[in-house]
């Protein structure tokens, strides 16, 4: 085992995949210079040089600023023999290539009756909460969840990031990654040998019996902190990280709610039609009979992102907002606990 940062894990997964398969290439703006830190050599950089030195300019491709053409080109290349990893940098830039995502990546195989397969990974990172203003802070994964045919990963830790990215690169279908920049520096123990984490399998980060708390991406660590706070107050939270949003492991979530009877969902995307809405809707269908309290969502407010640090923090889920939501659905236990303690 070694300790790795989330961003280091992404670089390491890319390096392993590039070494394993000559059809894997990396294409994107400024990938040669490794501006975003994921196309360097990780630990081995000193010995092996950066990705350009290791893999050559034929496989590490700087592009013009042309997101739509980059995405379309990667799709076409994937249909004809390559396995591209496209580095789109900020998730906010995905809009530029929306047509290619929806009409080509997602529909191609289906519409041509299975003739094509499209093994391509579109990496992007959500730079939110970092005072970069409205244009650079988006967390647009819910849009893509509404498009059948795209797989989506949104890891919340280094271990998951590395294992899921390897599976994504192995996949013969288009995969979008939504990385959480606020977690880029977070460290975790990671096996030294290569490993893969399957899509569609949630990770239960903490077991509990009073309330199920689902945390997506950057909201997962906050959910764990909130669970800690609540444990001190006698409320036992089960914290689940879905890890992949398409496919979504609804089974694990539903089973948990059948046990706890309560659900809080936290995520960094806007509330309306977000992943939390989907999870709430699934549970309100499959586990309604077990619910003993309202389902609470703790999402980014339905607002654009203001620049000023005096304003921005209000927009996203916080440990406190998650605690408040848990309090709201566990009012009974808390009252009982208060009586016991008081």
């Amino acid at each position, binding site marked *: 085992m070694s300790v790795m940062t989330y961003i280091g894990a992404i670089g390491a997964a890319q390096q392993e995949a590039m070494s394993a398969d000559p059809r894997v290439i990396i294409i994107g703006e400024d990938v040669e210079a490794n501006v975003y830190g994921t196309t360097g050599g990780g630990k081995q950089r000193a010995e092996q040089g950066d990705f350009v030195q290791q893999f050559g300019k034929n496989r590490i491709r700087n592009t013009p600023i042309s997101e739509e053409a980059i995405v*379309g080109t990667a799709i076409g290349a994937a249909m004809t023999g*390559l396995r591209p990893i496209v580095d789109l940098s900020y998730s906010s830039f995905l809009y530029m290539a929306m047509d290619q995502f929806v009409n080509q990546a997602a529909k191609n195989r289906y519409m041509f009756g299975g003739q094509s*397969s499209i093994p391509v990974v579109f990496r992007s990172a959500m730079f939110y909460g970092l005072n970069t203003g409205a244009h650079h802070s988006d967390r647009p994964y819910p849009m893509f969840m509404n498009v059948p045919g795209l797989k989506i990963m949104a890891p919340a830790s280094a271990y998951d990031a590395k294992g899921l990215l390897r599976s994504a690169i192995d996949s013969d279908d288009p995969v979008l990654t939504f990385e959480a920049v606020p977690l880029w520096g977070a460290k975790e123990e990671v096996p030294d040998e290569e490993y893969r984490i399957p899509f569609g399998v949630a990770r239960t980060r903490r077991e509990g019996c009073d309330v199920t708390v689902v945390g997506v991406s950057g909201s997962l660590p906050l959910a764990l902190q909130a669970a800690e706070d609540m444990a001190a107050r006698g409320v036992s939270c089960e914290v689940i990280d879905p890890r992949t949003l398409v496919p979504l492991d609804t089974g694990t979530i539903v089973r948990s709610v059948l046990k706890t009877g309560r659900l809080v969902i936290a995520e960094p995307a806007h509330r309306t039609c977000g992943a939390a809405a989907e999870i709430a809707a699934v549970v309100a269908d499959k586990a309604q009979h077990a619910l003993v309290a309202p389902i609470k969502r703790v999402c980014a407010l339905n607002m654009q992102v203001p620049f000023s640090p005096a304003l921005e923090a209000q927009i996203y889920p916080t440990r406190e907002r998650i605690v408040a939501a848990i309090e709201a659905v566990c009012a009974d236990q808390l009252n009982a606990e208060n009586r016991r303690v008081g």
Partner: protein
Amino acid sequence: MKISEKLARETLLEMQRRMLRIRLFDERASKMVKRGYIPGTVHTSIGQEAQVVGACMALKSGDHMTGNHRSHGHPIGMGSPLGPLMAELVGKATGVCKGKGGSLHLADYAVGSLGESGITGSSIPIAVGAGLSAQVLGEDRVALTFFGDGTANQGVLYESMNLASAYKLPVIFLCENNFYALSTPSHTVTGGRIVDRAAGFGMPGVRVDDGQDVMAVYDAVAEAVDRARRGEGPSLVEVMTYRFREHSEGLRINVDYRNSEEKQFWTARDPIVLFREALIAAGIATAAEMDAIEAEIAQEVEDCASFALESPDPEPSVAFEHLFTDAYDLEDVL
């Protein structure tokens, strides 16, 4: 029309065959739409056969092609068999896309056809990607993409041209300029000439003024293909042509956006008639031989229509296949 001396007789006759296939297939499809056998609508390439076939015949096996909504000619030009194409238009299980694509979304990977696109412009970068994979993998193949004059105003084309040019990819951008985008005359919404846009993106631009001359189209595209194969990068070829029919079958536009002199001028320049006459004049084939070819293709088209009509509908469950390559939980879908 000057018949190229470089081309074998069989190749020349195959050109005429493919043009005839497009013409008769589209005439047939048009009738089948009107009679309700084909759901939705179709966009025919009638009148534009030389432009399509001249371009496709300049490619060779292993090369790739992407197309657009005017979609039947392109795979036919690449040599795709007619039966599964027509069955696709009708929505049958035997369709080239299993009935899931329809007229707008034909693809036949077996002949290098990577897909037509209902969304104009959307398939242009796909061809650039085929060029990129050829370059990275060191494979000797080129990719050609067809788009219209209207689509030449979509930004993705210039991003694609630039990317292909910067990487020197083996790609041919082929603009089918039929002077209109639906009811909109090209010159009213287009600044400058399309062919002149190539230079600013660092590639040659060639305009084929007589796109009804299949030899002229072939020569221009063959040169661009040679250049691409030599590793010198992409080219833009603009072909001036005309669609003889309405934008799509059954569409009625109350505005007289194409006047009758113009229509007459162009229909008098029927690419199939012109090529037939040129072949006969050059002594490549006799009138009787050409008649025989026409009869042969007419039969092929008859057969494809029967094949399509007699084929079974797809099983309902086919709607739930091909979303992903690996098995998925139908719960996620239903």
